């Protein structure tokens, strides 16, 4: 492990230790925050008992579906904005402020449209996530160095060939960043929707545990969710770093 990695592990361990001590010594009210060790045992119990396995799987499946749709649609929108610079210019202020509007406010609308099942959650996560992919794609396409495009032109590549052989590989790091953001945002969208109104899923279970004062269960579920998201994100992030390093070489 590198020096930075060792230091990082040390800092995280120290923070967890301090939190544990603060909870055990009563500096933090037990009811507000469980000590990390109890959160971990609670999370393990939840995972082994199988009581919440269905909810966990349902949440992950919904996130996967929404992320997949968002990546495809966002990429298509990115291509469209790249091919039509005027449209991009007109849409820029909207893209720039897109994430200031909580898309969850359209969730009730989706429930009326799709019924109370998993589809409104897919829709709300899609609305939240696909724009990140579109922005990343168009940024990536615009970052392709003009000399590469001139080379493609002088080799008489067709538009599709230019896209496939030149633009896509050159923009790959950006596209990957887009995919990473899309997955993160799909998680946020699905979990937020489950918090607001839903009959199953991790977000629903956390809100339910909170409302019925089951602090241990709530923190156990939270830990599972956060660990899952952070693990997925860290895997993607380390790969992304490698891709971007290739860019600057």
């Amino acid at each position, binding site marked *: 492990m590198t*020096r*930075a990695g060792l*230091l*990082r592990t040390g*800092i*995280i361990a120290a923070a967890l230790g301090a939190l544990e001590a603060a909870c055990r010594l009563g500096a933090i*009210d037990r*009811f*507000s*925050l469980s000590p990390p060790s109890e959160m971990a045992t609670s999370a393990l119990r939840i995972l082994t008992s199988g009581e919440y396995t269905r909810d966990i799987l349902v949440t992950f499946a919904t996130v996967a579906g929404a992320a997949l749709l968002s990546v495809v649609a966002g990429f298509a929108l990115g291509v469209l904005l790249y091919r039509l*610079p*005027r*449209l*991009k*210019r*007109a*849409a*820029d*202020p*909207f893209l*720039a*402020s*897109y*994430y*200031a*509007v*909580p898309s*969850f*406010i359209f*969730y*009730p*609308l989706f429930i*009326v*449209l799709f019924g109370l099942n998993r589809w409104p959650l897919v829709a709300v996560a899609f609305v939240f996530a696909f724009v990140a992919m579109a*922005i990343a794609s168009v*940024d990536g396409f*615009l*970052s392709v160095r003009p000399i590469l495009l001139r080379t493609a032109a002088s080799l008489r590549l067709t538009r599709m060939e230019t896209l496939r052989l030149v633009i896509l590989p050159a923009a790959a790091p950006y596209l990957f*960043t887009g995919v990473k953001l899309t997955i*993160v945002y799909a*998680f*946020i969208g699905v*979990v*937020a929707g489950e*918090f*607001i*109104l839903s009959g199953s899923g991790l*977000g629903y279970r*956390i*809100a339910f545990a*909170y409302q019925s004062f089951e602090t241990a269960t*709530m923190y156990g579920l*939270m830990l599972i*969710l*956060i660990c899952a*998201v*952070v693990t997925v*994100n*860290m895997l993607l*992030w380390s790969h992304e770093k490698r891709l971007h390093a290739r860019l600057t070489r």
Partner: protein
Amino acid sequence: MTPAAKPLKTGRIAGPLDTVVLVGASAALWALAARWVGPQVLTGPVDTIGYLGGLFADPEFRASVWETTRAFSLALAIAWASGLAIGMMLGAHRLTGEVAEPILTALYSIPKITLYPVILLFFGLGMPARVAFGAIHGIVPVALFTMAAVRGVRPVYFRTARSLRLGPLATARHIILPACLPGIVSGLRVGFSLTLLGTLIGEMFASQRGLGHMVIRAMETNDVRLLIALALFLVTVATGAGALLLAVDRRVARLGAGRG
């Protein structure tokens, strides 16, 4: 997230006109969709604008706007100030940055909405919880952008500063700040959006006041007209502010490009 958008070939007048056309087209689509699904599901643009106009006379709406503005300003001040401070520190010191970057990235990816019970337990219902919710959404992106900007300053600038015998303060003021201003402004812009999002979410779940609370109540009572009017209001305000910040961002980026 690229440093500078490429200059496009559209003229000065065509830009705003295109935006107007785009807004018109979106409104037309909205009207069609409303016609298709019916007013119980989605109210049309004309109705909504009329209803929103009426809302401005409603003291409860005005009080909510004021509450949200207060909470958001406070959260934004906290997010910008601490994000900048953290980002500068991490950017200036290589090892600290390397240690902290993955931690920040991980924090950025957590669905912070799951943390609302924790925030509620610590801050209780009310202003501090809303501000905290807004600030935790905004701090990390501002810090990440600032860190990247400070790190991206070309080493030759530092060498120039040294050869000109500038002190650390003068270096920060005349070299580092101007050199990484474009990145910082982009970070502040993203931080603005996410802080607004965070404040509204905080109000939705952890408050009895503000626009977010009005939204959640409209959801619960299935008041579609109010919900869509609030959505229109939020989209308009957020887009207006976003466009303004984007213009500042572009100007700064151009200044930076001209200098570099």
